[in-house]
């Protein structure tokens, strides 16, 4: 049996990229870093009480009373175990990764919805991105971006982007053909069709994709603590490496609370959209 040297080729390719594209990667690094820092500055800069009020209000408006109460209780718990700043720094990383995943993923999804050929080629790529063990992304990310939150964000973006791409494409493809035809019959341009008909009707599905992307980012952000992205992942990692079960559990608990708050809020945004249409 011949041993195909795939690993060697990947290594060589990565080497070549780090040498010849270094300024490109530096540019990206600086860009992403400043976004993360910006969010972190805002989240940590806002006094805890005000942040709490904002989260409660958002949860109340989108998901109702119970989620609002749960969110407040959860945030107070995080504050009391002194992990608020760590949580906010993780949240900043999640926000950044999700935002960039959206900026790339939604247009990609729209494009895929319009081209069967692109759809065919992209599907295995998306499968690859999503099912490749998440740790594998950490190594090249470190190669290109050193240690720190930036490679963590990049790995997270790659890992978390597939759902938003897939569900954007799916949502647009599921817009009833007769509605699209009716819009064409009234002389809608492709752009009008997209923004006035297809995206609004696909919105519940797109938001379901957003929800999944956020959840995947959060899980990846914790893993990326291994390459120094900081935040709650760091707390958990320290708990493991120093055998401090209590610390590790507290860090994990904060992750769970953050995940649940984000999940409930984003899910109910999608649901309320659907209900308005079908009521």
């Amino acid at each position, binding site marked *: 049996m011949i041993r195909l040297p795939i690993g060697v080729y990947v290594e060589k390719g990565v080497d070549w990229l780090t040498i010849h594209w270094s300024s490109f990667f530096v540019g990206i690094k600086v860009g992403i870093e400043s976004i993360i820092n910006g969010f972190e500055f805002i989240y940590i800069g806002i006094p805890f009480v005000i942040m709490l009020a904002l989260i409660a209000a958002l949860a109340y408006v989108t998901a109702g009373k119970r989620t609002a109460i749960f969110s407040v209780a959860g945030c107070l718990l995080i504050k009391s175990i002194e992990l608020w700043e760590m949580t906010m720094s993780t949240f900043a990383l999640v926000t950044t990764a999700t935002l960039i995943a959206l900026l790339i993923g939604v247009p990609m999804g729209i494009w895929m919805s319009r081209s069967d050929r692109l759809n065919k080629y992209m599907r295995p790529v998306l499968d690859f991105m999503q099912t490749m063990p998440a740790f594998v992304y950490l190594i090249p990310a470190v190669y290109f971006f050193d240690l720190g939150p930036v490679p963590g964000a990049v790995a997270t973006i790659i890992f978390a982007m597939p759902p938003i791409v897939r569900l954007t494409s799916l949502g647009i493809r599921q817009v009833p053909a007769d*509605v699209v035809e009716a819009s064409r*019959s009234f*002389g809608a341009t492709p752009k009008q069709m997209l923004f*006035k008909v297809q995206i609004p*009707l696909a919105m519940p599905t797109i938001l379901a994709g957003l929800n999944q992307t956020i959840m995947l980012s959060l899980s990846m952000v914790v893993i990326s603590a291994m390459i120094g992205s900081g935040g709650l992942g760091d707390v958990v990692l320290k708990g493991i490496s120093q055998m401090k079960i209590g610390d590790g559990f507290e860090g994990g608990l904060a992750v769970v609370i953050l995940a649940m708050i984000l999940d409930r809020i984003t899910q109910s945004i999608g649901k309320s959209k659907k209900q308005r249409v079908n009521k």
Partner: protein
Amino acid sequence: MTKLEVKNLYKIFGATPNRVMERLKKGQSKKEILKETDHGIGVNNASFAVEEGEIFVVMGLSGSGKSTLIRCLNRLIEPTSGEVFIDNQNIMQCDKAQLREVRRKKIGMVFQNFALLPHRSIEENVAFGLEIQNQKLDDRMKKAHEALELVGLKGYEKSMPSELSGGMQQRVGLARALATNPDILLMDEAFSALDPLIRKEMQDELLSLQSKMQKTIIFITHDLDEALKIGDRIAIMKDGEIVQIGTPEEILKSPANDYVKEFVQGVNRVKVVTAGSIMKPADTLVYTKDGARVAVRKMKDANISSVFMVDKQKKIKGIITIEDTLKLINSGKDDLSEIIDRDINEVSPDTLIEDLIPLFMNSKYPVVVTDEEQTIKGIIFKVSVLAGIMGEEVVND
């Protein structure tokens, strides 16, 4: 004036439609072509012209190509070859922008399953066509409200489509098509998804709207009764071909081939055939100046027992019977005006058989057909009504 004209329109579905055109022109059938080349024939050499203000119905069973045909008119489906003229503008030669302009300004379309935008309120749905033209919010809302009032949905402006019944949703669909004030309405099985009572109501409403608006309407349906009811003219399609074009009566009275004949067999003629088409010429008449003896002779010659009386301009005056005339002569008089019976039934030529039947139940005389000036046009006997219902010509007299 011709509003819309279609000349030699073809639509072939498949990978190499142009090659299949050759086979089609050689006379191969839809079935053979599908079997040998895997190409579907949507429309096969359709030609017709629709007059301004006319309701032109295209009727056929499913798969006959009628929905494909209507979509070729605004190029929602791109025809394989042929020409479509609207106001003498060749739609096939329009570029994308021109075509959009035609769709925006000249053509409104109503769909079988309504195709409303579920995420928008009723008024926003109706204003959609205007919004696409980038009209100002105030203007388009004003026009949308007018259109909604026209279709009887005032007060539902803020509702969502899912809150409305099927019939009401289709009214919204109609209002949406009317809001841009197009000359031409394309209605694709517009009432087929509605239940029978609502459908009838919508048909009546369309006819009454049409009498006010005078749009040019192309209406697709698979329901012959619907076609006969609302169509000024009907085109019958089979396997992508138009097999006959004519008024409802022409199609019922002289079907072009066995297919159409079979189709129209089950039709309720009572609602379609008119007095004008079953009446007999009034060959025997007495005039006001005629005397009793002349009247008797005329009736005896024609072998009839009563005769209509008219004046010099052939205006109907009444009817006299042979018994009364003979009695008159026996009593030594001659003036027919003494025995004239003015209690006769007059109808206009476009009266339906449906409305003639009760007249015969209450009268022993034939019905007389007259125009607006009361001039006699013809006579209808009981037997002609029966023949009209059966769809047969009366060859007696």
